[in-house]
């Protein structure tokens, strides 16, 4: 006796005997035991084949890469990271589905069904063995989960993982395997498995076409799509995602697929067996529907009330610490970030000849999108308007005050080069506060525009302070300069070349009052200042600190005081009447000059 792949024989495989409906009780019990042993022995071999399958191995590898690509960019929050681990398991699930379909359809695809029919084992037994073999992918899934969990732990996560979410990921893989066996039992062509594997991806990538919480009924909604606000929450939110119910849905689907696969291969089974299959299928359908209904329920109003309150009035939930006369307010659990925040701010403050009168506050903020139906489905429009008004009143959706720096939850990097960039952004925001650089100018009661410190000495001072505080790489700083073509912003009737500081679009930090649009000239002068002895620059700044903070003091005057030539670069050009110089899409056609 050999395996279906021509491998080594296994014990007990040939021990199955066909039994009639009227066999003695002892004989029936013995043959049932024998059949179970056959299923287990076949299942063991199939599990090994499944684990060795290149598709499954590639699925483990690609799944790991996907998880790493998701979790490495920002400091992991476990209530978000565990769902992202599930996204990697979705890749493994797709591979397992295709591999299981290939295994289940092997006999028909290779035209050896007649040969199999001559074996003592029935088609139903072999299908049961295929289903049992799915236990073999559990270790692969657990290995991937464990490796991902170790990776998350190494990045210093906040919170604790949800067992329900991780169990849901494991069930996802098993359900996909069962679905693959069901497909293979009916369609033996490999394209059926490939299409079956693609189906979850095709649906998940276009989740936004489906209304409200229907997204939770998908195999595993992508965090970048359906569960898009998980990484912005200051803590876990009950029912978002509905992990336990989703795991129940996947378990129901797995059982249902298994029953369908068995029903399609057991043709001459006794009525009692068919009845059991039908009953199990009905229970699976009921469980799936029940779990789906639970997932479609709206998140309780009390929980959303609490979340909106945390976002609208952070002071009620945050813990504040004052160090070096700077107030740091962080949500519970984020206290470990305090040293990483203090260091760049302290480095800037240490170099100031004099500090502003207003105290600086560095606080975390939650950027909630209440228009996301996945989060707020099922709640009346009046309630949504009330929550939106709460957030608007608190200014969370607007611009931080002039004496505050906002840190959006979930944006702080875990480490590496991104952390250096984030530290620079925080230092720059602190330096802008220190030199009184306003960020915005109101053009109406509701509209604000970034101002531009054209030719102002304090801009170069702020950039110089931030560079000295965090020492970012020269290439990152230079990368924000216009390259090849001129880009800038229109101020008055001229195009001013601008400088995009490192991490400008990453949203690590929202500077006080939104932060100004920095200019290329300001960066070039600051860069030249860093090549001078630090004592010399500090002496010049301390000598007339109030003068350098005045918006009328020019960068040319600062360069002269430092006895260095003003660095050359693309000059401010008149606004072209034709498209010779194209301003970048930015704050608008006319940016104001930073004054005051």
């Amino acid at each position, binding site marked *: 006796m050999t395996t279906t792949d021509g491998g080594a024989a296994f014990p007990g495989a040939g021990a199955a005997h066909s039994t009639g409906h009227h066999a003695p009780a002892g004989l029936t019990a013995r043959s049932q035991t024998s059949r179970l042993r056959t299923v287990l022995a076949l299942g063991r071999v199939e599990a090994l084949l499944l684990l060795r399958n290149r598709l499954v191995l590639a699925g483990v590898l690609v799944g790991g890469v996907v998880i790493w690509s998701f979790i490495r960019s920002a400091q992991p929050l476990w209530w978000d990271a565990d769902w992202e681990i599930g996204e990697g398991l979705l890749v493994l699930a797709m591979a397992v589905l295709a591999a299981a379909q290939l295994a289940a359809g092997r006999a028909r695809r290779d035209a050896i069904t007649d040969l199999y029919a001559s074996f003592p084992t029935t088609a139903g037994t072999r299908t049961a063995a295929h289903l049992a073999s799915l236990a073999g992918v559990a270790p692969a899934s657990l290995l991937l989960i464990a490796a991902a969990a170790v990776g998350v732990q190494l990045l210093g996560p906040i919170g604790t993982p949800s067992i329900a979410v991780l169990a849901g990921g494991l069930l996802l893989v098993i359900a996909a395997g069962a679905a693959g066996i069901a497909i293979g039992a009916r369609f033996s062509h490999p394209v059926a498995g490939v299409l079956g594997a693609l189906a979850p991806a095709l649906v998940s990538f276009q989740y*936004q076409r489906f209304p409200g919480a229907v997204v939770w009924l998908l195999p595993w909604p992508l965090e970048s799509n359906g569960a898009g606000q998980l990484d912005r929450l200051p803590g876990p939110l009950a029912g978002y995602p509905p992990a336990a119910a989703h795991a129940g849905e996947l378990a129901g689907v797995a059982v249902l697929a298994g029953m369908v696969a068995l029903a399609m291969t057991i043709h001459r089974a006794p009525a009692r067996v068919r009845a059991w299959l039908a009953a199990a299928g009905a229970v699976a359908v009921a469980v799936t529907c029940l779990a789906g209904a639970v997932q479609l329920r709206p998140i309780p109003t009390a929980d959303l009330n609490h979340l909106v309150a945390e976002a609208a009035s952070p002071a009620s939930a945050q813990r504040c610490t004052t160090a070096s006369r700077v107030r740091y307010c962080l949500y519970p659990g984020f206290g470990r970030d305090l040293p990483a925040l203090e260091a760049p701010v302290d480095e800037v403050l240490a170099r100031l000849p004099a500090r502003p009168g207003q105290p600086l506050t560095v606080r975390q903020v939650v950027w909630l999108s209440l228009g996301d139906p996945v989060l707020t489905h099922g709640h009346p429009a009046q309630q949504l308007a009330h929550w939106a008004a709460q957030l608007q009143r608190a200014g969370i959706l607007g611009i931080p005050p002039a004496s505050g720096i906002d840190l959006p939850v979930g944006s702080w990097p875990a480490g590496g080069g991104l952390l250096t960039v984030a530290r620079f952004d925080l230092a720059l925001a602190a330096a802008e506060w220190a030199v009184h650089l306003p960020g915005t100018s109101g053009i109406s009661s509701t509209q604000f525009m970034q101002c531009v410190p054209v030719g102002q000495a304090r801009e170069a001072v702020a950039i110089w302070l931030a560079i000295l505080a965090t020492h970012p790489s020269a290439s990152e700083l230079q990368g924000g300069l216009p390259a090849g073509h001129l880009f800038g912003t229109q101020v008055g009737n001229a195009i001013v070349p601008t400088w995009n500081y490192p991490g400008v679009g990453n949203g690590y930090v929202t500077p006080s009052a939104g932060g100004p649009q920095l200019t290329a000239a300001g960066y070039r002068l600051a860069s030249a200042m860093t090549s001078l002895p630090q004592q010399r620059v500090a002496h010049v700044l301390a000598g007339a600190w109030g003068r350098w903070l005045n918006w009328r003091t020019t960068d040319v005057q600062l360069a002269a005081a430092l006895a260095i030539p003003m660095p050359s670069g693309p000059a401010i050009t008149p606004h072209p009447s034709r498209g010779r110089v194209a301003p970048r899409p930015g704050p608008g056609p006319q940016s104001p000059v930073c004054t005051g």
Partner: protein
Amino acid sequence: MSWAGALPPLARPIIQTMPWVMVISTCLISLAYLAVLAHFAHAPSSPLGPDAVRLAFFPAVAALAFVPRDPSRPLTQTTPVPAWVAPAGHLLLAAPILAATCWAQLRVVAGTVPPHALGHLPAVYPLIAQLTGWCAVTVAAAAWAGRSRYADLSGAIAAPASIAAVALAWYAPITSRFVAEPPGSPHGVTIVWYAVTTAALALTGVAMRDQWHRYSRRLHRPRWPGQDPPGYPFSKNR
């Protein structure tokens, strides 16, 4: 007589052995998927775009991966007509079906754009170039997998491999500026994808002309290098 003279009589068996059901059904699945999306995309704020076409083309590309497979290659290889004629004929027959699917998909997407939408619609020719290149890469992967010991599963290997390769090229920072739009320009992206198509077709030709026959398992090993055992007919040295 040249083998080309045998081509007209071969047309009928090639048409008969073409996997019509698989190709047409997967193309219909592609269209059905896009139609469902279009049904939910009637809100003017969410018209379908090129991404939806790319996603919807997945099943058609997956089916294309199985077209070059010729299960009777051991037999056709012994005939005077080159063995690549049958898979090449199948590919030629599949090409218009895929082109028609692409055209229909673009029509479906265009139908979801409001008639008075602001701004210009994105150019279609880079998308067509990308789908063409994607198909060519898939066919090349299938042809090469078909000449390996995994010939039976060449399509099952080529489909995910080509999708993964294209996705990697699309998202990797080094390559995305050449193959994705944006950051690449429509003209540049089109040129790159047609260059990829040309290279992939050349590789497909090389793989299809390969004459060696490969077993999935080597049943007998030669007792010493360079000598095959008696009765081992498909030797490299023959």
